[in-house]
């Protein structure tokens, strides 16, 4: 690696330095836009005691769900979980701690974390169990709670295309949490479907500028669909 060239040749290199008890931020919504290759590499590495921040936790046998198989995750920070039986079991048996966070608050915690803002006020969750024990304050007659931002040791991101400098674009709704996650990792790893040369992506179309990105790796993606829903083609 030299200069601004962020490309690494393997997932092994991409996740070098990941250790037990670290916090990993992962992009994706359901199984859409998830960093499949990084997740598989974390499984191979066998690191344990991870805190994983991700909107969801995959399904049995796919996505982040595979990290439950060897009990590598000790805490999940998510807005919606339990699409997998193993998750339910580990949560019920107290092996897996879950911090449920409203989806918009989770997105903003990551955005703020990457932007150097330690906390912010939001109306979301005031007067609910989520607001209990949190500082609250009124602005213009309305109640808000103080939510702290999130950063992580590693951020794992799924992009569509990146150039060698780590400038990234996303495809369709596979964008979701990925751009915020990309800003909030001490080490941000982006896996993509295609790596291009600097200059090939239109600078004004770049969604994650390379300054946030430490490593870029080329992946192969299964892109499993959670709810395949179709209509009949018009006759």
């Amino acid at each position: 690696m030299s200069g601004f060239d962020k490309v690494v040749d393997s997932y092994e290199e991409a996740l070098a330095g990941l250790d037990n008890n670290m916090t990993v931020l992962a992009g994706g919504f359901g199984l859409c836009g998830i960093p499949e290759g990084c997740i598989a590499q974390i499984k191979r590495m066998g690191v344990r005691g991870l805190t994983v921040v991700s909107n969801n936790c995959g399904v049995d046998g796919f996505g982040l769900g595979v990290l439950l198989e060897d009990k590598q995750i000790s805490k999940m920070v998510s807005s919606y979980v339990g699409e997998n039986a193993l998750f339910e079991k580990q949560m019920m048996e107290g092996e897996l701690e879950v911090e449920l966070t409203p989806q918009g608050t989770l997105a903003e915690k990551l955005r703020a974390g990457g932007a150097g803002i330690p906390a912010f006020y939001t109306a979301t969750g005031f007067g609910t169990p989520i607001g209990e024990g949190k500082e609250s304050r009124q602005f213009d007659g309305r109640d808000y709670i103080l939510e702290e931002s999130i950063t992580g040791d590693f951020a794992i991101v799924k992009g569509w295309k990146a150039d060698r400098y780590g400038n990234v674009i996303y495809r369709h709704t596979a964008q979701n949490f990925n751009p915020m996650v990309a800003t909030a990792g001490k080490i941000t790893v982006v896996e993509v479907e295609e790596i291009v040369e600097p200059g090939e992506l239109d600078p004004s179309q770049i969604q994650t500028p390379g300054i946030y990105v430490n490593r870029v790796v080329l992946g192969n993606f299964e892109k499993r669909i959670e709810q395949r829903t179709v209509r009949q083609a018009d006759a």
Partner: protein
Amino acid sequence: MALSREQMAQRVARELKDGYYVNLGIGIPTLVANYVPDGIEVMLQSENGLLGMGQFPTEDEVDADMINAGKQTVTAITGASIFSSADSFAMIRGGHVDLTVLGAFEVDTQGNIASWMVPGKLIKGMGGAMDLVAGADNIIVTMTHASKHGESKLLSECSLPLTGAGCIKRVLTDLAFIEIKEGKFWLLERAPGVSVEEIVEKTAGEIVVPEHVPEMAF
């Protein structure tokens, strides 16, 4: 007779106005999209980051990178936009969405809503519901008036943990269309053939009944 799910969706759809940006929750709210009145254009927001959600794809159009907030494969309409989750909730929290329709377990006369958690049962999470109810000024809750066991879901105080406090102003049940203001339910309309007495009997919180309660027509 109590409204069917489709009739509930149809009634909610009459509240749509031309040019509305609308977020529809899972279940009955999703069906509202099937009853957009003629001559009205609305754009559907899906909180995973899509404004201008279209139909489900044909088999040939299925794309794993195009899903809705229910994780179903979808398409985008002409003129749609796609953005990050932070932008999506900026729209929602910032009050830019004109109408939000979502389901609930309970609502009460203070405008509180409980929709995400039943203690003792598996808790899957609130997803975007807390942000949606906190951010939207114009919300319609759709739910059955009473539980399967006949217990009212329109209460003087929600018994379940809240999704949001003081944020609900309108509820459409299978029996009635109800407004919440001044700490009371106000009966606006009744389902065809459903008596005011039945609605009052099945409403646990205080309900104000005007002299004439129009009957919904379909």
